[in-house]
């Protein structure tokens, strides 16, 4: 830009200090003036006149609000500073800026230790409140569920079926493929390790127990949390942003009954079905790997599985599935209903819902392990 440099000059007129501004003062050009000017100001230090100088802006070529503000603030001027200008437009600008000048309140610097402690305290209180709210929400869901049992037409069967299609049928491919691959990897690894003891045929037990008890259901639950739990939060959250949920309430429709219950029911029913599918795919993957590395036929693999791995290894896995499904769906819906105002909170809470539901799944899995340990199954 070929604009003249913005410059300030101290002069005196009839004994009064006058600050003369010239050049182009726009938001793009003031960067070039402010540093040297500020440094000069600091160097001047105590010699600065206590009296705010008059401003003569008649030599200013281009001016905008940022430029006018900069001239005024460099002069230490305020709303009452006298400004002379050549052009009427510039006078208008100065008048507008002077009428709206405010001294920005700068934030008080906070001690870092205080700051850190405050943050920690905040997050603890928040977590505690969150846990309380979540319990309250579980309660509300259960109450609605009981009401629906007493009045079966309150079950939105259509919605449940639609959601089941979404979270069960559409997840079959991804769950199947991933569990199959995990089965292959698991079998291959156990063959490698057990070969050292000459016990590689025990790979069948390793695969059967690991997939049946833990991996099948955990893997499925984690995939579903990432796939369906997040979708629940995003769907309900978007409805919340569009005020659709509030609209429902005004129509006398209970959002928990219409939005939450169908999703929870669908996922609680779907996760055991998906887990069964995942376990089967995992075992097939194990059998496939064994047929390559152990020279087993598929039939031999499944015979050995039947003879050595008890059916309870499968039951302990599948019992956990509906619980996981319930928790994933409930957390997803709960976070969706927590969305408020902006689209940004949809994104934040979707992330939160996935992290939280995976956290709960793993914690619950640990609790189940302890229960099964005492139940001796």
């Amino acid at each position, binding site marked *: 830009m070929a604009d003249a440099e913005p410059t300030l000059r101290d002069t005196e007129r009839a004994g009064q200090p006058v600050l003369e501004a010239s050049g182009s003062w726009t938001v793009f050009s*003031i*960067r070039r003036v402010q540093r040297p000017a500020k440094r000069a100001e600091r160097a001047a230090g105590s010699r600065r006149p206590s009296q705010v100088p008059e401003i003569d802006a008649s030599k200013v070529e281009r001016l905008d609000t*940022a430029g006018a503000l900069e001239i005024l603030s460099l002069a230490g001027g305020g709303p009452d500073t006298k400004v002379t200008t050549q052009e009427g*437009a510039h006078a208008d600008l100065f008048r507008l800026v002077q009428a709206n000048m405010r001294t*920005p309140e700068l934030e008080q610097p906070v001690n870092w230790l205080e700051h850190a402690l405050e943050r920690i305290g905040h997050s603890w209180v928040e977590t505690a409140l969150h846990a309380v709210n979540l319990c309250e929400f579980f309660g509300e869901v259960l109450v609605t569920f009981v009401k629906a049992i007493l009045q079966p037409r309150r079950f939105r069967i259509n919605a449940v079926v639609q959601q089941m299609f979404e979270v069960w049928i559409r997840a079959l491919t991804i769950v199947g493929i991933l569990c199959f691959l995990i089965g292959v990897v698991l079998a291959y690894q156990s063959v490698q390790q057990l070969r050292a003891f000459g016990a590689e045929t025990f790979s069948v037990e390793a695969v059967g127990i690991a997939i049946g008890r833990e991996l099948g259901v955990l893997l499925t639950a984690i995939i579903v949390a990432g796939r369906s739990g997040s979708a629940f939060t995003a769907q309900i959250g978007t409805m919340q942003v569009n005020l659709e949920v509030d609209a429902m309430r005004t129509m006398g429709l209970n959002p928990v009954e219409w939005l939450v219950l169908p999703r929870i029911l669908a996922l609680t029913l779907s996760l055991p079905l998906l887990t069964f599918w995942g376990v089967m795919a995992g075992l097939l993957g194990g059998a496939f790997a064994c047929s390559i590395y152990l020279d087993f036929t598929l039939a031999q693999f499944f015979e050995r599985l039947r003879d050595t791995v008890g059916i309870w290894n499968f039951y302990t896995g599948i019992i956990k599935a509906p619980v996981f499904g319930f928790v994933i769906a409930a957390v997803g819906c709960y976070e969706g209903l927590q969305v408020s105002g*902006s*689209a940004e909170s949809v994104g934040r809470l979707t992330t939160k819902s996935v992290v939280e539901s995976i956290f709960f799944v793993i914690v619950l899995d640990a609790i189940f392990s302890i229960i099964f340990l005492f139940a001796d199954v």
Partner: protein
Amino acid sequence: MNEDQDELIPPGPLQEGGQIVDHRNGREVAIRVRGLRTQFGDQIVHDHLDFDVFRGEVCGLVGGSGSGKSVLLRTIIGLNYPRAGTIEILGTNTHGLHANALTRLQRRSGVLFQDGALFSSLTVAENIMVPVREHAGLDEETLWEVAALKVAIAGLPADAACKTPSELSGGMRKRAALARALALDPELLFLDEPTAGLDPIGAGHFDELVRSLQKSLGLTVLMVTHDLDSLMAICDRIAVLLDKRVVVGTMDELLKYDHPWVKEYFNGPRGRAARKEQAAVDGK
């Protein structure tokens, strides 16, 4: 009313720039659109559209729903690509403009979107600082001063600067969006339905604000609006989108323009009421 005022201006051939009568008077053209054609699939929205906005005026843009007001605005801003025709903004043809030149041009115009389109994760002050920091490279302290000034100019209370858009009411959001649009002191201001969703008092205040800023900052304003009151109160000229083209005239000229939609729009009960009100204001 005297006789020649009752005479209707027929929808005949228009002056250059879609004008009913020539308004140029040697004024500088800020936005010049010639032979514009926009099309989505088979649907032609504008065809052979000519349109001029002069520097320093407030031009209203009206039209039936679906007539392509917002599309025209978006095309002029550069968010839509026209199929044919040229758009000149501040003397620069935007077609095939180099990215840097386009950025320079965009810095000279501000846009107020219908719902504000404020960045929802940032506070109002940060919203205003975004374009200033990016394009002017000022230090943080000056940025704060500039942001505080814009907040005040837009008529917002000082504590609004530290709030996020979702904490503001609809009217305050509009003002915050206006403050952001004015962040770089643009020469051109585009407003998309600035008063939609505001109560009449708030809408009136917003109109006054736009008018006074336009005067003191010397802005050129193009606003899409359906608010007959703001058309009467602040627009120098009104552009009407009719049959894929634009007809521009002052309120008086359009009142005499012989086209069914125009007559219904300005002479309908609401149009008459708004005119009566404005006449009362002017008469005071």
